[in-house]
Every structure is written in C-alpha cells, then in structure tokens.
C-alpha cells in the first residue's frame, strides 16, 4: 500500500474512532463491557466484608480462576464481546447508511477497499480497547480479594501472567474475528439482525457441529486459546452429549493463524461487496 493509502486509512480511523467511542447510540456497549467488572467487584467487596466479619467462604485463587474462565468463555466471549462487536461493526457501514452520511466517504479520491480497511481497523481499535480494558479490570477485580503474597505467587509462579496475557490476547482476537463477521453482515444485509441471529446460533451450536464445520466459527479458535479449559457440562442431556464431537483443540499458533485467515477471508469477501456498494438511502 502506498503512502497516500496509509494516510487515507489513518484519516478514516481518526473520523471513525471518534464516532465509535463517543456515540450515544453505543452507550450500551460500555454497559456490556463493564457489567462483568461490576459483578467481580461486587464479589470481591462481599468477600472482603465477610473476611472482616470473620466469616469466609474460602474461595482459593485456583477456584476463582476457574470461575473466571467459565464466565469468560460462556458469557464474556460468546455474549458480551459478540453483541458488543455486533453493535460496533454493524454501525460502521449500516449506521452511516441510516445517518445518510456514507456518501461523503465515497466522494473522496479513495478506493473503497481502503475505506473498508480504515473502518475495520477503527472498529477493531475501539472494540479491543473497550473489551481489553474490561478484561483487565475484571482480572484486577478477581485478584483484589487476595493478599499481595497470594497474588504475586499466582502471577509469577503459577503462570498467572501468561494467563492474563492469554485472556487479553483472546479478547483482541475475538474482536478481530467477530468484527470481520459483523462488518460483512452490515454490508451484505439491510437488516443484519437475521445473519446476527444465525451467527449466534451457529456459534452456540459449535460443540455439536461436526469437526469440519467447527473450524468455520470464531469461538472454535478462541476456545483453543483460552488458558483454562472448561469441561462439558455433566448435566447436559445425554442425546446432546452424544452429538458433541470433541474436536482436538488446535495449537495456539494454528488457532491464531486460523482465526486471522478466517477474518481475512471474510474481509476479502466484504471488499468485493464494497466495490459494488450503491448509495440508496431511501430503502433504509
């Protein structure tokens, strides 16, 4: 990419970042991101209070990291980041169509693919910042209930630091993967809710999909990268348990490559679409 195109990407990012971070319409995304922080903070406060009162539930750091892993995989990744990315990335094209302001970009001497890359990067930066900060705050809130010796032991001798890094990495990769999916959905469909619902069901059904189909989902790669694995719920109905095919978790580098490849493929498809994109605000 030549220098002008980089300048254009930066120009788009500058314009979009501002809209994404400070849009009133995106207020609920902050709520999504910060809800688990509030929950862990509340838990920590309760634990500290109980300790002061001489009553303790004796939650070890190991137990807490296991609980956190469950919340991270089943709530934060699958729901909070999923819907957050839906809100952020869908807004990039479909939101501007609704605001009737997309044509200003299309009237500048910039290839539409450059616009797509700029918008995607802006969404990625916004989503990554919001959700990574939330991940960091959640971990801080979880650890806050323990004394400094326990924390430093966890961080430096029990792979705590690498776990934190993994969680942050998975958060950013989730934004990258879901972001590409919803950017494409926002461009391809006038009402992206239908594809969003389909993706939600597809991602939720990932455990029961055949091994080959599992690979065409974001959660498959993300799960492989999570530092603590959560076993299949023993309470799962037997019929469903039979369907669950436990595909071998992929190696870290393969998971990252797979996810990047998946996102790149979706972005390339979006690029093909953006070239043919027409402005017809009346149908919005």
């Amino acid at each position, binding site marked *: 990419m030549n220098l*002008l195109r980089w*300048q*254009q990407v930066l*120009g*788009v990012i*500058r*314009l979009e970042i*501002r*809209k994404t971070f*400070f*849009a009133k319409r995106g207020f609920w995304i902050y709520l999504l991101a910060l809800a688990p922080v509030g929950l862990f903070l509340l838990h920590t406060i309760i634990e500290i209070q109980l300790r002061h009162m001489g009553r303790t539930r004796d939650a070890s750091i190991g137990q807490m990291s296991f609980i956190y892993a469950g919340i991270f995989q089943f709530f934060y990744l699958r729901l909070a980041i999923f819907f957050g990315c839906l809100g952020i990335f869908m807004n990039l094209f479909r939101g*501007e169509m609704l*605001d*009737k*302001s997309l*044509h*200003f*970009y*299309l*009237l*500048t*001497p*910039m*290839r*539409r693919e450059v616009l797509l890359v700029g918008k995607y990067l802006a969404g990625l930066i916004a989503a990554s910042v919001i959700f990574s900060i939330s991940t960091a705050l959640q971990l801080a809130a979880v650890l806050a209930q323990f004394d400094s010796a326990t924390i430093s032991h966890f961080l430096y001798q029990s792979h705590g630091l690498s776990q934190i890094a993994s969680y942050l990495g998975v958060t950013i990769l989730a934004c990258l993967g879901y972001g590409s999916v919803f950017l494409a959905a926002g461009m391809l469909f006038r009402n992206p809710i239908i594809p969003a619902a389909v993706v939600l069901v597809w991602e939720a059904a990932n455990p029961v999909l055949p091994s080959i189909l599992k690979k065409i989902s974001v959660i498959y790669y993300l799960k492989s990268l999570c530092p603590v694995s959560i076993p299949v719920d023993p309470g799962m109905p037997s019929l469903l348990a039979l369907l669950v095919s436990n595909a071998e978790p992929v190696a870290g580098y393969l998971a990252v490559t797979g996810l990047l490849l998946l996102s790149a493929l979706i972005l390339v498809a979006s690029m093909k679409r953006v070239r*043919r994109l*027409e*402005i*017809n*605000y009346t149908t919005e």
Partner: protein
Amino acid sequence: MSDRIIFDNVSKFYGDVLGVNRVNLSIPPGITSLVGPNGSGKTTLMNLMTGLIRPTRGSIQILGMTIDDPENLFRVVGYSSQFDSFPKGLSGYEFIYSYLLLYGFDRAQADEFAWRAIDRVGLREAAQRKVGGYSKGMRQRIRLAQAIAHNPRVLILDEPLNGLDPLVRAETIALFRSFAGEGCHVILSSHVLHEVDIISDQVILMSAGYVVAEGNIQSVRNEIQDQPMQILIRCKQPSELAARFFEEDDVVEVRLHHDRAGLLVKTTNPTRFYRSMNHLARTGVGLESVAPVDDDVNSVYEYLIGEEGSR
C-alpha cells in the same frame, strides 16, 4: 484527455423501477442545468456521474475517467448531494478539514483549503459551530463548501439554491459563474426555471427517466417545431401591422398585447418570419423591437414536459 462528460447509452433500473433509460449525453464545460419534474431522473443522473450508484447498462466517462477510478475521479469532481445529513458531532470546519485529509493533503494545506472554501460560501463565523445546529441555508452552503474545497474541475450540485436567501442566492450564482468562467463544468439541478434560464449555458430536460432535450436553450426551442414560436413586436401602429401579418402563410396567430403597444405573433417558421420583418421595417410601420418570448427554459419545459411536470 477529453474535456467532456459522456454518458453512453446509460440505463439505471431500481429493481423494476426505471431510474433513467438510454441516456446519451456529451456535456461540454460551462453551466449545465438538469431540469425536469420530481422523479424524472435528475438525481439518478448525478449519482451515476459520481459512482454512488452504478449503471445497469452503458458507461460513463468524466473527463476521460471512469467511475471505477475514484482515486483520480474525485480529485477533479466535487458533488454536493441533496442528502441533508452530515457525520455526527463535527463542526463546519472539521467536516471540511477531516475529509480533505483523505485527499492526501497535509494538515496545513487541508486547513488552508478548508478556510478558503468556507470563506467562499461566507460561513467563517459559523465554521466552528456544530453542523447539527446550522440552519437549512447554512447546511446547504457548508455542503457546497465541501464540494468546492479541493478545487474540482467538475462541480455537480443537486438543488444547490434550495433554502438560500436572495442575497446568498445571488452570491452563489456568481460563484458558479466564476467556476464556469475558469473552464470548469458546473452541473446543477433546479426547479426554479427562471434561475436556470439566467445561469445556464445549456440545459438537459428530463422526463420520466428519459432525456427529452439537451443543448443551448434557444437551439432546443428552435427544434420544437410542433409549437409555433411566439414573438413580441413593439410598434407604433399594431393594428396596421396585424393586418399585414395575416397575409403571411407561416403566421398562425396574432394578438394585440394587453398594453396595446405591441403584437404577440405565433409563427411556424421563425426564420422566414424574421426575413419578412426586415422587409416590413422598411415600410415605415414604426417597429421598435422584435423579441421571441418563448425561447426560455420555462416555455421549453412547458412544451416538452407540459402537464406531466406539474403533476
């Protein structure tokens, strides 16, 4: 490189709905007005020119460039659309400046161009206010400023005079003239026919998605042969002159002007009529002036589009 905007057999359909059909145009520099009733395809034509929509059939070239080449095309094209909407949260200055950066101008250049454009539309005082708080006229002007900020050679303006007060209207028309004077294309659409008449070098009349006429307005009028041309003749003895006109084969109607100091003559052959007028002038009927009264856009519009336009 061509200096024309060329539409080669362009059609655009929105599903089953016709936008424009089989448009063939070659637009020279100068002020060109698109005239036609609502839904006649004026905006579709402008959107096609700027690649905001793509032709179903045919091809478009702007000064030799295709609409698939935005990197070059939009260095020379500026478009002020009719969409009265702006990116949220930006001031007038930020709106122009931010988009100028996408042209590859450095910050100092973008700043200079932005202020110059803002000055040209007279919005310096309001430039730092949020566009959301602007009046309709101000929004129209800031859109115009955005379209001209990068010094385009082709300026496309959809209803650019809408919402402007008379003073600003006059200033804006002067701005268009100065652009056209520099050899640029100014293509605008308007419903105000007398303004179109005043400012246009050529017109494109549209109706129901078809181009019904194009070119210099007088030439267009001459082409409409099924409507006799109306000529106003000022003279001292109108009744005597009227009697003489009845002897002419090509004169189909003669009426006394309401101030009784002239005649309104309808002729099917203006050339022959003017020639006979030369002859009459020498006979001492006291001719003061001879001028056509229906070779303006209004009349042409009435003849070609007629009632359809007023629907």
